[in-house]
């Protein structure tokens, strides 16, 4: 796989954003959140294999809360 320099990646992101239709741009943050949530919950399941789905969701909410607190603590 070819590794692009960082400014080339930024350029690619800008060009992709300009080309994206309005609806995709409007929904992108929620779609990306769902993707990130899925990965985070998979990580929680791996870390806590004994946890029920309800417990995994609660742990995910705790992680989101921790993230907000870390952000506020800047």
């Amino acid at each position, binding site marked *: 796989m070819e590794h692009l320099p960082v400014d080339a990646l930024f350029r690619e992101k*800008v060009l992709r954003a*300009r080309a994206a239709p*309005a609806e995709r741009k*409007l929904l992108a*943050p*929620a779609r990306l*959140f769902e*993707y990130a949530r899925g990965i985070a919950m998979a990580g929680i399941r791996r870390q806590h294999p004994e946890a029920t789905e309800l417990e995994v969701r609660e742990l995910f909410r705790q992680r989101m809360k921790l993230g907000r607190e870390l952000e506020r603590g*800047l």
Partner: protein
Amino acid sequence: MLAVARALDAAGIAFMLVGAFSASFHGIARSTEDADFVLRVDDLNVGALSRSLGATFRLDPQVKLETFTMGSYYTIRHLDSDFSVDLFLLKEDPHDQASFSRRVLVSYGAGNVYVSSPEDLVVTKLRWSQGGRRAKDISDARGVLAVQTPAQLDVAYMRRWADAHGTRELLETLLAETPAI
């Protein structure tokens, strides 16, 4: 997010989508766990809006205060996804008022949504970036400046508000650093 926009529209409440969703619309998309709306409403009918949203949403009837921006807001949680939506009440603040009057109508397949203008998004992001220390605010502003290009933006408007908010130096730095693509 669009379900909330539709419910607000149906209730006849003037609104504007701000924050990460606006930044993603005008700039480079990023993930966020919540959507922020600004509402121009005298008295929010929480019960009616709650009913209009349906059973998969929970609207907390208690109004909260955001201590940093001093904004009053309600929170809606989407029960299936943990995604939340904050409904901020439009403040008397001169820039908030100007921003709302310049909101942009976006039409998509299923309807219309108003979002903050790219200029007002940048001005707001710089204002609340704590002197540039909140990385995501700076990253959002840089993304908007790069995607929209300074030629497509009302730079004089952004400079006026940046002067008023004490963020002019930060704005000039971002404008100078933004690559022409």
